């Protein structure tokens, strides 16, 4: 890339908004919150109070650079670079603040990122996503961005960069449980998705073939979707509890009125509509002439279905799967309320103890998982769509 000097041109409206919000955060919101122990109210600290002058100055200079790029540089690569520099600097600064405010060996004090840091990260994140959108990267590049970002974050975590921050303190205390609940979370989200694909795909195919069934079946699935998740858990408790009571094998398999079973069943039921409806929509989009020609040339019904119809409908079906996966990753959180486990356990435990750091220990990975699933599946849909165009 030729090195052109970025020039200030017209003010960028989104950039202006982000710059103003970021500047307000730096000036008026606490950078970190210091607590002498886990549950006492915190004590706000500013950037200049927690970092050596040179570091605070470097941090502010980088943020100024990002704001300048946001305001007046139209080159998307420069904007992305500035946003990523800002994110890195803010993350390192807050980690350094954690190190500085924690006396050696002390495991009781808590240093949490303050509102200022969160606002800055949101602003910089928006700046980065806006820049990436403007660069119109292909599906491969988007997944690459995600992989690089994940690797960088993973390396920092493994290296212990953030170990003195309160969320990582909660992690250190709960490391075993975290691994178990994360596995449970993925297992519930992916397992109910897989079961839903196995059931909803044939339902969708049937609804496509027999239009008389379509309104009734999709309508029923739609009604299930409108039941709030807590209510659905409640509705499922009674029959599953009765099943466990009546059939010893069911109980032996872990089926109970509360716990993972009603959660998995509820997620499964929620997953049916998007997959079945998208299967119908995808099959409807298949050119009739192609199906007619396939049959006319002597393909068997199975060959027409798998080799032509489903293949051509795949991008739309995958869109349904993407909706379900992202939805499930979020919804598994609620499963913790009925003893289903998953990362939601930390969220609700944290709410109960008013320990916001514990809430974050559950919430941050959930958001990261949902976001990554969306990026990867969107890329997959685009690749498929491109191949068939």
């Amino acid at each position, binding site marked *: 890339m030729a090195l052109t000097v970025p020039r200030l041109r017209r003010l960028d409206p989104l950039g202006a908004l982000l710059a103003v919000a970021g500047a307000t955060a730096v000036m008026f919101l606490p950078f970190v919150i210091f607590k002498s122990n886990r549950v006492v109210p915190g004590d706000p600290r500013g950037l200049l109070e927690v970092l050596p002058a040179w570091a605070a100055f470097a941090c502010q200079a980088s943020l100024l650079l990002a704001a300048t790029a946001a305001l007046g540089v139209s080159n998307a690569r420069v904007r992305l670079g500035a946003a990523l520099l800002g994110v890195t600097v803010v993350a390192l600064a807050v980690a350094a603040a954690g190190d500085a405010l924690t006396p050696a060996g002390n495991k009781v004090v808590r240093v949490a990122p303050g509102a200022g840091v969160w606002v800055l990260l949101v602003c910089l994140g928006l700046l980065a996503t806006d820049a990436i959108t403007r660069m119109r990267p292909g599906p491969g590049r988007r997944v690459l961005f995600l992989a690089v970002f994940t690797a960088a974050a993973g390396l920092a975590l493994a290296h212990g960069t953030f170990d003195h921050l309160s969320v990582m303190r909660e992690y250190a205390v709960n490391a075993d449980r975290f691994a178990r609940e994360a596995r449970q979370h993925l297992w519930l989200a992916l397992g109910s998705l897989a079961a839903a694909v196995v059931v909803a795909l044939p339902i969708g195919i049937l609804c496509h073939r027999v239009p008389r069934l379509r309104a009734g079946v999709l309508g029923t699935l739609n009604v299930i979707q409108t039941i709030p998740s807590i209510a659905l858990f409640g509705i499922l408790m009674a029959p599953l509890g009765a099943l466990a009571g009546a059939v010893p094998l069911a109980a032996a398999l872990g089926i109970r009125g509360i716990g993972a079973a009603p959660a998995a069943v509820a997620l499964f039921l929620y997953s049916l509509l998007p997959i079945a409806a998208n299967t119908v929509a995808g099959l409807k989009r298949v050119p009739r002439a192609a199906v007619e020609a396939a*049959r006319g040339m*002597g393909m068997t019904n199975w060959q027409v279905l798998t080799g032509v119809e489903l293949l051509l409908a795949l991008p739309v079906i995958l869109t349904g799967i993407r909706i379900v996966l992202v939805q499930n990753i979020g919804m598994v959180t609620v499963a913790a309320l009925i003893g289903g486990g998953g990362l939601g356990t930390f969220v609700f435990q944290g709410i109960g103890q008013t320990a916001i750091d514990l809430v974050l220990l559950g919430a941050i990975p959930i958001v990261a998982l949902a976001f990554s699933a969306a990026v990867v599946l969107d890329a997959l849909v685009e690749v498929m769509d491109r191949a068939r165009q």
Partner: protein
Amino acid sequence: MISLENLTKQYGATAVVDGVSMVIERNSITVIVGTSGSGKSTLLRMINRLVEPTRGRVLIDGADTTGEPAHLLRRRIGYVIQGYGLFPHRTVAENIATVPRLLGWDEARIRIRVAGLLSVFQLDPGAYAHAFPHQLSGGQQQRVGVARALAAEPAVLLMDEPFGALDPIIRAKAQDDLLDIQRRFGTTILLVTHDMDEAFRLGDRVAVMSHGRLLQYDRPAVLLTRPADPFVSRMTGISDRAMRLLSLTTAGEAALPGASDGPAVAASASLREVLSELMWCGAESAAVMDADGTRRGRLTIAAILARGRPG
């Protein structure tokens, strides 16, 4: 040879094809014409059993088509439809290879066959074999559709309004190509259209259908000169039937011995074209020339006009 015996298809109480019997000669082009909804497609689709007849049967070379599973029968019969139905997710070469793959041909044989068909249909293999259908023009897609139908060398080719989506100039070219292909491969072609000009241009024999019934099935000239039904004469057109008749005979067929100092016309030109040429030049007779430039004979205006009358 294909025999349709009392072929009938009913949907509910209505017979959309009603007791059709006809014999389709080998190595010929038979065209089925009729207004929209007259049952042409249904008739065609009963031959490859995309539609199962309510009554009657179809014999190909004497064998009842219900004697084998429908999908195996269809692999032996080429099928081209309006809109072509090319597979958008497969390349041109993969599209053409569809039936040979179903039949389990080995890859080398498939490759040779696909390359051969691409050149027969004037599609440069280097440029088009790996293109996707959406990258082709309408005329090219149509040719791929026909090439795909002919890939496994079927003896019978069914075509349902195959040129319906083409503009007139490309359609005329596609019709000429089809005549060429028929001569080259000796395929028995059954073609459905609602366009009488197309029927006259392509058909060795033409079948006229209305409301599911076969009204007349004969050579085009007979349809013009001895229509079996008022509907047939309405279909063939009354106002220009003389010109239609002239268009069915070539100059070569009608040429008489003798020399002419009038314009030279090709033996393959129709009498209608020769008459037009004579009117244009103000000449009384034309010299008919073979393709190799030798003189075949001559045609006078009077001789041409005599051919435009029945009997």
